């Protein structure tokens, strides 16, 4: 059974970075290639001056890996898979080979990483750090992967963390009962996820419905506008979202 998926993603600078005239450290990417549809989101570490570059590298290269090596990746064990993704990302960081302290230089590009990729009826999802992955089953949106913070709100795990391999979570399964996925950064989660009840806002279901009803470019624009006018107003942080929705299967098309 072949599914057809539609994907959109957007990221906007938060009020804190606007005030400090710093770049947006959230980055999102979506792609359909080689029969794989992937959405990827990364949130750069607050005080690392080049983490916006790190977030962009993480999203684009993770997406590249997913669309080129999905079959290989789905079969790997968690630790091996984490190593494969993190190496691919870290190898792209523009660090001088003669750098005195390459580990320290690498930290400048630190970001979280969240992704979902689907091929045929199988999905692979990964999550390192804060933010959240949601999925839609029937008409209900549920949480696939919860935010990973340390004890304190301003601490989490990054692509460059020494313990990143231990904290990179992976999920695999069938999409037969799943109709959509959404990735959100911690800035967006502030409006879309209740920390007390560990539940999702009704807005999540509503946004997933947009992809069913409207063309991709319309949804893309709506996502951007709502990030700017609604979600950004409820946090000082950058905000980003990426979502994908199953439209129909080849059986339905026939």
């Amino acid at each position, binding site marked *: 059974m072949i599914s057809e998926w539609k994907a959109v993603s957007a990221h906007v600078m938060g009020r804190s970075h606007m005030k400090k005239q710093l770049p947006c450290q959230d980055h999102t990417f979506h792609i359909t290639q080689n029969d794989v549809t992937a959405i990827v989101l990364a949130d750069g570490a*607050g005080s690392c001056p080049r983490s916006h570059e790190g977030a962009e590298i993480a999203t684009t290269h993770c997406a590249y890996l997913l669309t080129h090596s999905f079959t290989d990746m789905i079969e790997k064990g968690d630790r091996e898979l984490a190593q494969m993704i993190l190496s691919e990302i870290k190898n792209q960081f523009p660090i001088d080979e003669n750098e005195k302290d390459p580990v320290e230089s690498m930290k400048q590009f630190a970001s979280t990483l969240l992704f979902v990729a689907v091929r045929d009826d199988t999905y692979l999802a990964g999550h390192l750090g804060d933010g959240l992955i949601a999925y839609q089953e029937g008409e209900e949106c549920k949480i696939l992967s919860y935010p990973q913070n340390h004890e304190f709100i301003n601490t989490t795990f990054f692509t460059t963390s020494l313990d990143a391999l231990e904290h990179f979570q992976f999920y695999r399964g069938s999409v037969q009962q799943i109709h959509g996925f959404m990735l959100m950064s911690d800035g967006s989660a502030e409006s879309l996820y209740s920390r007390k009840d560990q539940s999702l806002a009704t807005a999540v279901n*509503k946004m997933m419905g947009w992809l069913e009803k409207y063309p991709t470019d319309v949804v893309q624009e709506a996502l951007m506008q*709502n990030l700017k006018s*609604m979600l950004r107003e409820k946090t000082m942080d950058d905000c980003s979202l990426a979502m994908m929705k199953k439209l129909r299967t080849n059986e339905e098309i026939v």
Partner: protein
Amino acid sequence: MDDLFLQHKELIENPTARVPICLVLDRSGSMSGEPIAELNKGVQLFIQSIRRDDIAAAAAEIAIVSFGDEAPRKELDFGSIERQKVPYLTASGLTPMGAAVNMALDMLELRKKMYQQTGVDYYQPWMVLMTDGAPTDDITQAAERSTQLALARKLTVFPIGIGPHADLSALKQFSPRRDPARLKGLNFSLFFEWLSKSVSAVSQSTPGERIPLPKTGGWDEL
């Protein structure tokens, strides 16, 4: 196309992440007169400054433990800063610093448990320890607790000496990561103004951010 706009009612209202701060203040006999008067003024100013800053006011939760007489006293428990009544400290008696720090750490632990149970996120707690003298009780256990927490980055300690007789080496035992500073004269107001700005900076920080605290503005001795 109206449904392409989200409504407020479709979003979640999460509580603001909190910064719990415990002031542990010396009110022993040696603080009598101008020092305790200036300290009281400084604490008032601190609370007022936080109240004036919307973001800090929503995030900061302040408690005060004083140490004088024979035992420490809980002067103010954590709560909404808008509703808190600032206590007036009177100086007398000894300097039971160890017991006061233990009380402060217990209160911070309890507050963190409350946050965890109610789904409220929080930043690393702060303990501000101010004294003009030397402890008159055994500080070993309290210093050990404080040190362990600070080394594990679970507590930020601000050790402040008041006047020339403050025992900075005793203060240092509570704070392995930050050296004690000596207040310049009785510049409590400047110190608390700086502290409120620091709270504001922390309450706006995001994951991975190193938070540069504002310049002291001259409250400390060089």
